[in-house]
């Protein structure tokens, strides 16, 4: 039974076998001919019986800025873990472009391949200077022997200068990252993603603990990134989401509850029910 199915699958005439094409490589251009750059299909993850993600489907277009909201425990962070390779899902598949199966790649490959991730708690290398933080994150060969014997080239340094300007950290260039303010650390971490030249940025709660002015600056930074990168922002702060969002996805109990513009989503009765109770 199973064999016949497999045979039928193999003999289907409308498919192109992967081995006929050159193997997909991260360093080549990601195939986004059909529009989306990231397909999350039917993903389920459970921890000791608790379903953190339940048949989650999500498609992110190239250059899109997407906000993901949802109550605590909705599976937002788990979703990021799955996309970046930290957690392996029980079922489902994730495709980067048309041809790259992310579930077959490890964390560092996914990161090198163009999916950058910012953690909820700002995580920078505190003992190193701002420049060194960016230097480490910069896209380049990242194997042991290469980093032992090579410094960055001029082009890569220019890119770091550019990102320093973008994130407003130029004058803190030499400062130890541990001595930065909370907001500056958040920006540095976003900067560290940017120098990786990612196609997709996953940003987990970028404005938590920021002052009003810092929130504004962050909103500006993130909206300026959309277009060049696809940006996925997970955030609790509704005012912030409203200020940047074009399209919002609401997660609830590990699956998508609603999707659309902020107004559509806020008037969705099911969303209101989840957020406000009965």
């Amino acid at each position: 039974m199973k064999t016949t199915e497999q045979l039928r699958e193999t003999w289907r005439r409308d498919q192109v076998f992967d081995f006929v094409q050159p193997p997909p490589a991260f360093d080549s251009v990601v195939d986004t001919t059909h529009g989306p750059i990231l397909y999350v299909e039917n993903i389920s993850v459970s921890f000791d019986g608790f379903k953190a993600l339940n048949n989650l489907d999500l498609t992110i277009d190239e250059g899109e800025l997407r906000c993901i909201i949802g109550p605590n425990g909705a599976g937002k962070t788990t979703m990021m873990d799955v996309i970046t390779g930290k957690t392996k899902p029980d079922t489902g598949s994730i495709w980067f472009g048309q041809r790259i199966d992310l579930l077959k790649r490890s964390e560092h490959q996914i990161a090198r391949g163009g999916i950058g991730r910012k953690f909820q708690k700002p995580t920078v290398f505190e003992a190193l200077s701002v420049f060194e933080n960016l230097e480490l994150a910069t896209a380049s060969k990242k194997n042991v022997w290469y980093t032992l014997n090579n410094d960055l080239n001029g082009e890569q340094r220019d890119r770091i200068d550019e990102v320093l300007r973008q994130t407003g950290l130029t004058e803190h260039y030499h400062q130890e990252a541990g001595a930065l303010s909370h907001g500056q650390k958040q920006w540095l971490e976003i900067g560290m993603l940017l120098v990786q030249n990612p196609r997709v940025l996953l940003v987990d709660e970028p404005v938590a603990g920021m002052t009003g002015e810092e929130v504004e600056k962050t909103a500006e930074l993130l909206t300026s990134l959309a277009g060049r990168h696809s940006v996925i922002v997970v955030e609790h702060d509704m005012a912030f989401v409203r200020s940047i969002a074009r399209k919002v996805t609401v997660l609830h109990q590990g699956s998508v509850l609603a999707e659309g513009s902020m107004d559509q989503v806020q008037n969705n009765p099911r969303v209101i029910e989840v957020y406000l109770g009965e």
Partner: protein
Amino acid sequence: MLIQRLLLNDRGGMVVLGLVALIAIVVPVLNLAVPPESPLYVSNFTVGLLGKFLCFALLALSVDLIWGYAGILSLGHGAFFTLGGYGMGMYLMRQIGDRGVYGHPELMDFMVVLNWETLPWYWQGFDMFWFAMLMVLLVPGLLALVFGWLAFRSRVTGVYFAIITQALTYALMLAFFRNEMGFGGNNGLNDFKDILGFSLSADSTRAGLLIASAIMLILGYLACRYIVTSRMGRVIISIRDAESRTRFSGYQVESYKLWLFVFSAMLAAVAGALYVPQVGIINPGEFSPLNSIEMVVWVATGGRGTLFGALVGAFSVNYAKTFFTTFSPETWLFILGGLFVMVTLFMPKGLVGLAGRLLRKGDKE
């Protein structure tokens, strides 16, 4: 450019390396050229002691590289040190030839006692110095590679890693205690005669070994500096401080840890190989877990994450050990334990950190 990077930016290191070079030059001269009656004469005992300390300093350096920079606490570095020592010991045993107690041209005395007929396969080739030195590097390196690969791949870190390294060195100790292993059982390897044709009992050979140890220490130090000042070194520091951030920055954290661990193990093995001809014996007792813990105490006392702190620690703790074990042997272990507690509580950056603080205070006044 390279000199700037390796030395000039590292003032503490320059001072310590300067002292090492001074020892390597002055001590042999005072030992060989000055008559014993002179007050300037340095005794053979002191030469041996300093040579030993230089080996310990190299060993401490290897521990600091992995613990101070990558945050990987290995409580089994004694295993690599001792394996290196056995490699050298095997070469020295083969040099004895038919001058052993039983006068057998090929077999070691302990093999004759065990009624062995032929030399085991793993003793072949050790009569050649280059081969023995190659094995000194390769065997511990390979062990570290396999062990580290298994441990880091499974993401074993912190205290769990420390415990399994401790188990590794303990297991090796038990194995080497067995006579059937063919490494001389609990007597180990001893009664060495000469190295590269030079008699080990000659003063000049001892002085030469001291100089060789100092040179290896300086080279090892510069190699470590090269690593920690490179981009790879900064990756390693970031692994220590924020491992998952490093991983999501696109680095394969495991391979960085693994290669650093292998390099560190080889450095420890070189220290062991230099140590054995100077003390004249290697036995399984060197594998004892306590030794490996002592190495960590040297580094903690000197100040971890600075490289030269490890050298300072190795010298000062071992000097204290020599002093106390001479005058009141039974108190040493208490002092060692107390030292570790004191350092952890009051000098988290070790002697080097303390000196730095005092210097800065002096600058301000």
